[in-house]
């Protein structure tokens, strides 16, 4: 049986960051991911916001971590070579009830020491965002808020963990866990494994993973939300994150300028949903509220809609959860259950927190050769003409544009495959192919062909995203 020190269940963004941080100690570390790639679940689709930290109850771990994580985010993104846009956010009130909410968040934010927080008058807010619908009361401005691409960040953390010696076991769904002397045995679909410690980062499945051994005090009630994405060419667009606070208890709307330059609108909340399907009512809600908040926004520029799932934790005893629900049911067994918003913001903090606890319990020595740096796939798009010319001259594949909307070259696609992409969406998550206005209708053919060629399989074996999602069924030449 394979033996390791620390097993991380789940290769989402939290699992990837836990692995990265566990590598700061002299431990053998492995991520067990059920699917064929990392960051394919809730890490793949969410609001992409790096929160400033005024939303959380002062004194909680959540409040403390969010403010600290936000302050550190630029450095984190530099270490991992991931784009980060500190664009600031405006929480918007159009009525007296919402004014009170803003006032409360403002005071909470001051207590949490959120930097630069300001309550703005309507006039001040219109100067910052002239597109806002008339009738604004007040706005809560948080200059430290930002946006990041969630899967890019998660993949970067995973690559950095692997670079520091972590093992990545894909297609290893954990089916049972047994407590044994000195640790745990994890039964997976591809063989068993002994681990001295476990960090459960299984996202939507985190409660059921813990239940394999101990009963958790929370259960996961997923909430689904629908989003729309606008093409980069849509103008004008707001330049900050906008959070519309509803006047009555109910649905708000968030508008997010992404690091890729597009605009994301959403979500419409639906409780107790477990699949990634959008709904007609959800999508029309997002359209309607977007139009209400930004009357001049060109919604004909929608290029994509998607649904995201949030693993909402609920205490089995009904009590309220104000902070992260982190459980420690047994020695060297830590569960990050139902880490919803701001899990993306705090991924590094939470990963560090869990790994420090596990490392202490396992009596591990610090790993002084830990290297926090990771380089992203060299993208040509951001280069100057001279830089790009030199690169193309040295590496001819950089001259071949594969995705014409997002300007991604063959060299980048090949590098993504080399780094672990096995599906069309795996390439997309690593390079941005297919994210533009034609949504892959012109480059998908080329990408499936490159995947098949490099992986040495027929094109009919290339999935779009995950099991049983093959794009073509075969080729006439297969039988010749």
């Amino acid at each position, binding site marked *: 049986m394979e033996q390791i020190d620390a097993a991380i269940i789940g290769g989402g963004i939290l699992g990837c960051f836990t692995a990265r941080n566990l590598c700061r100690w002299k431990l053998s570390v492995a991520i067990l991911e059920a699917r064929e790639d990392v960051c394919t679940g809730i890490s793949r689709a969410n609001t992409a916001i790096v929160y400033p930290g005024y939303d959380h109850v002062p004194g909680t771990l959540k409040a403390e971590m969010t403010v600290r994580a936000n302050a550190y985010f630029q450095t984190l993104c530099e270490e991992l070579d991931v784009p980060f846009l500190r664009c600031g956010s405006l929480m918007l009130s159009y009525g007296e009830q919402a004014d009170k909410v803003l006032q409360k968040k403002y005071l909470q934010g001051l207590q949490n020491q959120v930097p630069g927080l300001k309550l703005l008058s309507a006039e001040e807010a219109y100067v910052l965002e002239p597109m806002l619908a008339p009738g604004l009361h007040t706005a809560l401005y948080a200059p430290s808020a930002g946006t990041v691409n969630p899967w890019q960040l998660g993949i970067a953390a995973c690559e950095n963990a692997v670079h520091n010696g972590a093992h990545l076991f894909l297609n290893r769904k954990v089916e049972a866990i047994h407590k044994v002397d000195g640790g745990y045995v994890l039964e997976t679909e591809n063989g068993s494994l002994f681990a001295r410690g476990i960090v459960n980062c299984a996202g939507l499945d985190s409660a059921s993973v813990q239940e394999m051994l101990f009963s958790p005090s929370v259960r996961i009630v997923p909430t689904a939300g*629908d989003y729309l*994405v606008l093409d980069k*060419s849509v103008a004008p667009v707001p330049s900050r994150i906008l959070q519309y606070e509803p006047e009555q208890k109910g649905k708000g709307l968030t508008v997010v300028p992404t690091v890729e330059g597009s605009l994301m609108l959403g979500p419409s909340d639906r409780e107790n949903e477990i*699949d*990634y*399907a*959008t*709904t*007609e009512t*959800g*999508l*029309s809600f997002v*359209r309607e509220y977007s139009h209400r908040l930004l009357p001049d926004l060109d919604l004909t520029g*929608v*290029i*994509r*809609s*998607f649904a995201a799932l949030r693993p909402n934790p609920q205490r089995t005893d009904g009590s309220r959860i104000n902070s992260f629900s982190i459980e420690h049911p047994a020695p060297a067994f830590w569960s990050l259950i139902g880490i919803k918003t701001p899990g993306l913001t705090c991924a590094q903090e939470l990963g560090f927190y869990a790994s420090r606890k596990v490392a202490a319990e396992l009596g591990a020595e610090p790993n002084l050769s830990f290297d926090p740096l990771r380089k992203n796939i060299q993208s040509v798009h951001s280069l100057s*003409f001279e830089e*790009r*010319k030199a690169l*193309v*001259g040295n590496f*001819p*594949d950089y*001259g*071949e*544009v594969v995705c*014409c*909307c997002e*300007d991604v*070259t063959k060299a980048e696609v090949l590098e993504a495959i080399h780094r672990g992409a096995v599906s069309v969406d795996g390439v997309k998550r690593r390079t941005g192919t297919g994210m533009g*206005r*034609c*949504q892959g*209708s*012109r480059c*998908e*053919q080329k990408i499936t*062909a490159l995947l098949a060629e490099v992986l040495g399989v027929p*094109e*009919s074996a290339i*999935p*779009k*995203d*995950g*099991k*049983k*999602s*093959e*794009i*073509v*069924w*075969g*080729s*006439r*030449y297969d039988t010749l």
Partner: protein
Amino acid sequence: MIHCELLVVGAGAAGISAAVSAWKAGCHSILLADRAVQPGGILPQCLHEGFGIATFGKELTGPEYAAKLSESLQRTDILYYPETEVLSIAHEKTAVISRRGALDQVGFEKLLLATGSREKTIGALPIAGTRPAGIFTAGQAQERINLLHQDLGQNILILGSGDLGMIIARRFTLEGKHVIAVLEQNAHYSGMARNYHRCIEACRIPIRFRTTVTEVHGTGRICGVTIRNLETGEREQIPCDTLIIAVGLIPERELVRGLGDPDWLYSVGNCRQIYDIVDSAVAEAEQITRKALSL
């Protein structure tokens, strides 16, 4: 830096015709840059006949039409760069082009934009549900079937009864696939009568008017859709393993977005307006080219 009098972006029917007519009119410094491996734009993947009645007096297939264009191009000394992406165009009358192993700046006097169109995708439509594998645009399906010889699925549903939708419906039928239906939101098919008779009627493909897709079902591969009758509001679930989106073309003008309307820029072909017939695109492209050169 490469210099030319005339830069033509796109070697589809309009681009080649424009370049060749410019050359015939005496402009002998022409660079024709195109993304594809072979000339002809969308024509090589249009295996069906019906092209060229006005120009050649008989119905040609797409590849035959493309071959004629290619021959006319070869009779000139136009500098033709296939597999070349034009990355940007600047006010200073320069463009940046990228090819395997080479990135160049091109200086020009006049520019003919012949970048064609792109297809509207499912992302732009108000269709809820999942986004599994098995959803293709009509042109994408045509490329995969006709040029890459791939098998895309067995039970096919087609959204949109424009020419592309009707032609791909026939193509799937000829491939031995089951086309469940062509769905059209209007009360009448939107393509040409000729295609309706030759594709829908001749292949006995069911067409359902005033009907649209509201939701896609399936994880992994598409397993069906919900359709809605726009008259009655009635909904129905239809199983399918492939959904073809054939809801229209958008002129591809991203390269010149933000340039305004400079006097050195001319547009021909589908990036100017969507043409039903290639002959009209070609005729107008030649006319515009002559005008461009006389100024």
